[in-house]
């Protein structure tokens, strides 16, 4: 009884926080700078608070449809997070096209590598699609995102970037990736032990809340960089008047 209350509390707390951070970004007018984060939050909210409850309501918790929908939507969310990391790399490399040109194929190669390893696992475990394959695929994808995120964090540290917003976003994503990656690895090592699988129910939400708290902090407390007025050329009539 108390377990389910805790699970529901975490679940609905997570939804409220997702909505609150999204509203906060929109209200503070930061959605242009936080475009990737806003889209990811929108995806998170539509899957978490709309899609999953609808399928759950229609088919029930023990149905195969819900199980498939849950894991496939989880893959979509992780892919969304991967794209978000790519967009953060783009932001970190703003104005340095050479680095970005070098990074873009690397990001593609990492994704291809994860997909390749996972497809090899699919070939081995195609009979256990929702147990072994999905666990390993998610574990690999989360870990790839975590490694990329860490590389981004190191890049920011090395360049002594003053973009505090970006640094906090990266820290938040790190929390979101590291917890579930460790949990999936634990499930895989424990050969699908039910109690470790149940742990994901809490750990996943806990990590999402950690990420949202960090992003919320960044939106509220990190000051927006001042807009530097671009040096405009004086109009023709003014320069001719000065010359005369």
């Amino acid at each position, binding site marked *: 009884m108390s377990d389910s209350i805790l699970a529901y509390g975490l679940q609905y707390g997570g939804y409220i*926080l997702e909505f609150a951070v999204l509203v906060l970004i929109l209200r503070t007018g930061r959605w242009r700078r936080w475009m990737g984060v806003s889209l990811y939050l929108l995806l998170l909210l539509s899957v978490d608070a709309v899609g999953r409850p609808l399928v759950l309501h229609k088919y029930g918790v023990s149905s195969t449809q819900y199980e498939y929908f849950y894991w496939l939507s989880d893959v979509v969310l992780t892919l969304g997070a991967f794209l978000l990391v790519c967009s953060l790399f783009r932001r970190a490399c703003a104005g340095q096209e050479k680095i970005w040109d070098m990074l873009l194929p690397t990001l593609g190669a990492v994704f291809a590598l994860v997909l390749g390893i996972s497809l090899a696992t699919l070939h081995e475990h195609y009979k256990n699609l929702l147990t072994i394959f999905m666990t*390993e695929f998610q*574990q690999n994808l*989360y*870990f790839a995102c*975590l490694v990329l995120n*860490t590389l981004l*964090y190191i890049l920011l540290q090395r360049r002594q970037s003053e973009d*505090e917003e970006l*640094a*906090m976003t990266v*820290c*938040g994503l*790190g*929390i979101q*990736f*590291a*917890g579930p*990656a*460790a949990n*999936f*690895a*634990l499930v*895989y*090592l424990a050969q699908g032990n039910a109690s470790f699988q149940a742990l994901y129910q809490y750990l996943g939400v806990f*990590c999402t809340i*950690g990420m*949202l*708290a*960090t992003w*919320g*902090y960044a939106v509220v*407390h990190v000051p927006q960089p001042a807009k530097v007025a671009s040096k405009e050329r004086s109009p023709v009539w003014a320069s001719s008047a000065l010359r005369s």
Partner: protein
Amino acid sequence: MVLAAFILISSTALFFFYLQAACQRALNTRFEQEYFRSIVNANRLEFLSLRKELEEYGHAVDYGRLRMTLKCDFLALTYLLKNAANVNQSYSRDESLLMFYFRALFVIVAARRIFRLSEKKAVLKLTAILEYFANVVGQRVSQYRFGNLAPSDYLLEL
């Protein structure tokens, strides 16, 4: 199997690394002025003298007193965070995260003591968290006017 074990170990390590990095970045927030001094004086908090002691001698003279001082200051400041000039009477998300970080560091200090490792760095981080809390309380109190009371008088009346 080896890959999964590697992922488990490195992901767990990175989870704590990012948690710590997020907390440290939050602690680096600059305040307009040093609000914490008035709060420390009004409530007779001791973490500043503890920090001075650590910086001078490299270690705390009395470990028992160190633990007690940090614990008492933490309790006093978290009480003030919740009740001093706080309309909602609750902690914000970042305050909750930093409180969790404080408790985790507190356990680490005890563990380092058991394994006879230097606890100076961890204790300095603990005092930095307390300084942050005191700054937040000081900033909040300074933004409100309580009749003719100065911020320190208001705190003494709580």
